[in-house]
């Protein structure tokens, strides 16, 4: 039945009946604790991804690889990151895949793909909280394309930690157009530091933002943060 389902998947396109794909759905669920079956399933999915199947079929494959994909899927997915029709769904599989290779593929794509796709890749790195991407993101914070600079800032805010916060702090001092999003990311870093019991580091960020140069919204956010830090310290 799985053979038949994959044969149908090769012809699958918008408007196709989805019922014949049920064996693939079953295999995804049932292979949870059956390594051999899952390996076979992944191989079949990757083969479809590398075939001339339709965009819809490849999207379908990426949805399944988001659950079952391993390092074995990464090269096929990585190849799609630069393709405007497939980049998002390749990320759909890679973003949540718990392998170093998936993160590495996204990091490499962050400097290779065009700006439109890069924004998505940076979002995926942020979502993965990939601290190894901080040097790449730091370089992109000052990108001439505001959407790239914004995406880099938000990704750094998602990653959090002292290193990301320091990068954002430095950028905030010279930023102009994208300053609000850098500050937002910095506040997110402070919250994560506070939640991680690093009150001193969080307090330093909040104090740096509770100044007249900032908007009232930011000053109030920073003041709330200072109160949270000091109440924990006391």
């Amino acid at each position, binding site marked *: 039945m799985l053979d038949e389902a994959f044969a149908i998947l090769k012809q699958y396109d918008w408007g196709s009946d989805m019922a014949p794909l049920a064996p693939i759905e079953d295999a995804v669920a*049932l292979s949870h604790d059956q390594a051999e079956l899952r390996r076979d399933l992944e191989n079949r999915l990757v083969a479809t991804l590398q075939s001339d199947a339709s965009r819809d079929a490849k999207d379908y494959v990426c949805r399944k690889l988001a659950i079952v994909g391993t390092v074995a899927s990464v090269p096929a997915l990585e190849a799609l990151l630069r393709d405007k029709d497939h980049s*998002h769904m390749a990320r*759909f599989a890679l973003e*949540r895949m718990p392998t170093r290779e998936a993160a590495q593929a996204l990091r490499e794509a962050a400097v290779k793909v065009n700006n439109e796709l890069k924004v*998505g890749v*940076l*979002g995926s790195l*942020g979502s993965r909280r990939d601290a190894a991407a901080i040097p790449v993101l730091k370089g992109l914070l000052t990108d001439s394309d505001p959407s790239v600079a914004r995406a880099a800032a938000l990704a750094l805010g998602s990653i959090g930690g002292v290193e990301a916060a320091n990068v954002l702090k430095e950028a905030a001092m010279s930023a102009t157009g994208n300053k609000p999003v850098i500050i937002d990311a910095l506040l997110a870093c402070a919250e994560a530091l506070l939640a991680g019991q690093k009150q001193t580091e969080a307090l330093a960020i909040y104090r740096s933002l509770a100044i007249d140069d900032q908007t009232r919204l930011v000053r*109030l956010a920073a003041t709330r943060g200072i109160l949270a830090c000091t109440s924990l310290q006391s």
Partner: protein
Amino acid sequence: MNMFERTSRRRFLATAGAAVAAPYIITSTALGNADRPAASDRIVMGGIGIGNMGRGDQSDFLNRKDVQYVALCDVRDEVRNKAKTNVDNKYGNKDCTAYNDFRELLARSDIDAVHIATPDHWHAVMAIEACRQGKDVYCQKPETLTLREGPLMIAAARRYGRVFSGGSQRVLGDYRQYVDPVWAGELGTIKSINVNVDPLPKLCNLPAEDMGEKIDWNLWLGPAPWAPYNSKRCSGSFSINGASWRSFSDYSGGGMTDWGAHHFGGATFICDVRESQPEEVTYHENSGKPYLSYRYPNGLIIYHNRPNTGNLVIEGTPGERTPSKPVPMYKGEGGIYGDFIHCVKTREKPFRDIELAVNTAVVSHLGNIAYQLRRSLKWDAATQQFPGDAEANRLVDRARREPWQV
């Protein structure tokens, strides 16, 4: 604009009024009267997504005397134009600005609060951006599409001190007959409650259609995977049987989140576990038909589709009485909308504060994931992860189509 700024504006008006000659005409609309507060005391609002639910939300806010509705946004030309006409007719002017792109509306510094009633796949992106722009938010249910979105929305609201209300009017409105005796302690310790709600979301594979309407398709899809236009794919109908976006997993959690927001919201309210999340979901099968049981930290079990059990059937402890507790209610006047506006003015937390709404959405999402993986799951609310379950953790979130991020 926050309350501090509104206060400043009032002070400015008072000072300016004393210092300069009065204008030739000050309308009663601006000054207010016995029936309506002065313009400076009204909450300035805009709406994003003015389709079926959004139209109802707009109507409720628009008809409030303490709201000045100034802007709206929708990616459908016809919906947008009708909604603007509706507002303009109400006020007898042409002042309401209609936008196709929500970012333009959110960038306006004169807007205090927004209501959001787009399809679910947009909620997190828009609501978080609204908080960044200093707006208070009323967001229709289900507030989230993924588990990761909830904490991010809460964090954005708390970061900027925003009032953020979720949108189920039924949680308090429909279930009081269950809430009152339970909170009065008449049923003793509650052991379980059952929620019946269907269906699960499905992948949408509808074929391309000619666009029979003027719609910004790229913005409608937004963070969701690209797909061709199909009128059923983007229909805002309340149907969850394949004829609306509510049916499809790219835009909604199906009946589990759509009606689940009401029923699970009601169940968690009835059993007073609104402030917590389940720690375990057990997948059962009965004659080949799956159902779930969620276990809460206090031992409560919420069933989903328990065989031969009606919706909101409660299992208490016969012969036991527990201490009575006051039932939380809406503040202000006008149901859930009045509650939100009251809280915008007072900075209190609304009845359906985003944190409580997210806790309900978590129940729905955990259920969808358990059904998808066809197995039981453990859930750690503190880390928002499935402990030791790498496969399930992949489903905590999903990649968004560029350029959208949360």
